[in-house]
């Protein structure tokens, strides 16, 4: 008959549910079963020392996630039924959502697959299960995003051809090459890149101010999936921190490898986030927080607290983080100036900020903004008024590593362009910064493979050697690109507003 059961606490129960499941294979060698988790040089002596970050069993996962999904889809259904796209602050805002769909959503899918590779690839059961949860979460994110954006796609341009352009458009090579760099690396580098460097260190800069900004701009669809996804992200962040501690505790020889990865992935992630900062600063008509302020809160405060904590393992803050901090006054403006000039070759619209917005930038960014960027905007606004809206005729030269157009300036001179060159096997490769050059020089064999869209275009590999042919190849029509004021989105939005009796927006 039943004796009184022993009491098991959460940790013990989770261990029993997960750990004992795997075994040391003998009919096939462990190295054949797990062929990929040694070649990077990370030494793991004892996988049992892995600390499980969040102790979710499968049934608890189903329960919590189903509850989140029920809430999320109820809101998405209501959003569509009530035509809540009418409640956003301004149609310019939609361009931030377009960047998300074109650049971020495909990465969520790729992350699903990448973490499935880890969920199969690590020989420790604890690590494997944690990665499996992250994998299926990432699948959730791409699907909820597509379902949320589906409604916007019915009305706004820039969503419909995302699957076509995500691999081919020059500006979407920025996020794409970032993730492909991680997933083509070994499993420990992949998890360091994504779970730690991106999710733990940098993702707060993406989700917190931006999603809060979406809420402020009346976009309940993005707000809802964004915050709902973020509750999964906090599990992933915790996984990221655990991975770093685990590698460093297992073998002291792991430290230099991990440090090099942190240096690389901090810089790679930071460059990518420049795009997000630009969304935040320029594409949210109602502002929550500037990039500068977000950088101070989430990097200078939180990031530093994290690296103070990790100092006990001998880890130092990533190389060139001081450069990133110096750039906080300019990076989003340099980015916007570039997109503004090249937006006729994107599935986005751009514009000159309104007077009110320019004043907000002055307040947030001070003298540098007033002396460098404001005059530029005033000049372009003047051209626009004369009917000579400024677009570059040629495609930009992009960095061989981060794939961002080479517009960044010298760390100590915001007026001096920075372009560094490495030569590898007789070919010259251009980089935007010392951070990117270091990455190239460490693995030239990898980065010389990069698919560089402007080069491909000029070689005629993208539908033809002209911009028009290229756009056709991307399935982007003229009316889906370029200047926002006067665009299809703008006209539709003004039509909706006129019918609801609100005043029209005029360009700056």
């Amino acid at each position, binding site marked *: 008959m039943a004796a009184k059961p022993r009491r098991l*606490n*959460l*940790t013990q129960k989770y261990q029993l549910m997960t750990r004992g499941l795997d075994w040391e294979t003998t009919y096939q060698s462990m190295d054949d079963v797990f062929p990929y988790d040694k070649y990077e040089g990370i030494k793991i002596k004892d996988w049992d020392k892995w600390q499980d*970050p*969040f*102790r*979710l069993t499968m049934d*608890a996962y189903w329960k*919590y996630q189903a*509850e*989140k999904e029920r809430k999320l889809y109820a809101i998405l259904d209501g959003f569509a039924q009530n035509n809540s796209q009418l409640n956003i602050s301004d149609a310019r805002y939609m361009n931030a959502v377009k960047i998300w769909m074109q650049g971020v959503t495909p990465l969520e899918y790729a992350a699903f697959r990448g973490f499935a590779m880890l969920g199969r690839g690590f020989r420790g059961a604890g690590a494997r299960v944690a990665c499996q949860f992250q994998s299926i979460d990432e699948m959730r994110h791409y699907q909820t995003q597509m379902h949320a954006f589906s409604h916007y796609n019915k009305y706004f341009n820039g969503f419909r051809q995302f699957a076509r352009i995500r691999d081919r458009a020059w500006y979407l090579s920025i996020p794409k090459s970032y993730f492909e760099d991680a997933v083509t690396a070994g499993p420990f580098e992949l998890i360091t890149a994504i779970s730690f460097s991106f999710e733990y260190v940098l*993702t*707060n800069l993406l*989700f*917190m*101010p931006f*999603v*809060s*900004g979406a*809420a*402020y701009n009346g976009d309940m669809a993005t*707000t809802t999936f964004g*915050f709902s996804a*973020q*509750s999964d*992200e*906090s*599990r992933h*962040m*915790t996984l990221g*921190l655990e991975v770093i501690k685990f590698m460093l505790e297992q073998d002291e020889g792991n430290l230099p490898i991990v440090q090099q990865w942190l240096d690389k992935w901090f810089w790679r992630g930071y460059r990518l986030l420049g795009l997000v900062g630009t969304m935040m600063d320029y594409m949210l008509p109602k502002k*929550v*927080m500037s990039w500068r302020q977000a950088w101070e809160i989430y990097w200078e*405060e*939180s990031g*530093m*607290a*994290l690296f*103070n*904590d990790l100092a*006990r393992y001998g880890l130092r803050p990533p190389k060139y983080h001081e450069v990133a901090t110096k750039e906080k006054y300019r990076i989003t403006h340099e980015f916007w100036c570039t997109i503004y000039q090249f937006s006729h070759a994107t599935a986005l619209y751009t514009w000159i900020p309104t007077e009110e917005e320019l004043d907000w930038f002055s307040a947030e960014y001070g003298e540098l903004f007033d002396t460098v960027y404001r005059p530029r905007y005033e000049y372009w606004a003047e051209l626009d008024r004369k009917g000579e809206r400024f677009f570059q005729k040629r495609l930009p030269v992009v960095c061989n590593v981060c794939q961002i157009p080479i517009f960044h300036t010298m760390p100590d001179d915001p007026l001096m362009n920075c372009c560094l060159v490495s030569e590898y096997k007789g070919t010259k490769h251009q980089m935007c910064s010392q951070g990117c050059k270091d990455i190239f020089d460490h693995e030239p064999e990898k980065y010389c493979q990069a698919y560089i869209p402007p080069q491909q275009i000029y070689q005629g590999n993208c539908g033809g050697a002209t911009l028009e042919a290229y756009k056709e190849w991307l399935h982007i029509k003229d009316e889906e690109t370029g200047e926002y004021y006067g665009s299809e989105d703008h006209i539709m939005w003004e039509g909706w507003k006129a019918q609801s009796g609100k005043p029209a927006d005029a360009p700056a």
Partner: protein
Amino acid sequence: MADNVFIALQNNPDAQPIIQAIVEDNPAAVVNDSPGMVKIDCPKRLVIRRETVEEKIGGEFNLQDIHLTLISLAGNIEEDDDEFVLQWNI
């Protein structure tokens, strides 16, 4: 620098008892409101106690239920059946 840990929760009715419990159990905690979100900073260590949340709810609370409202966090996590702790080991 204060070496803050933080937790961010969705600003909805489910999160309110948790926020109240945090404020009660962590006198140094600072609550920052943003659209849709509440971020709570606290120097070095922040604790969420199951019992305190249960008092606020007037019913049972499983600490894993935090997942339903959690947005983000910073700090090393220590979690058992009674407490959810975020801390920097500095």
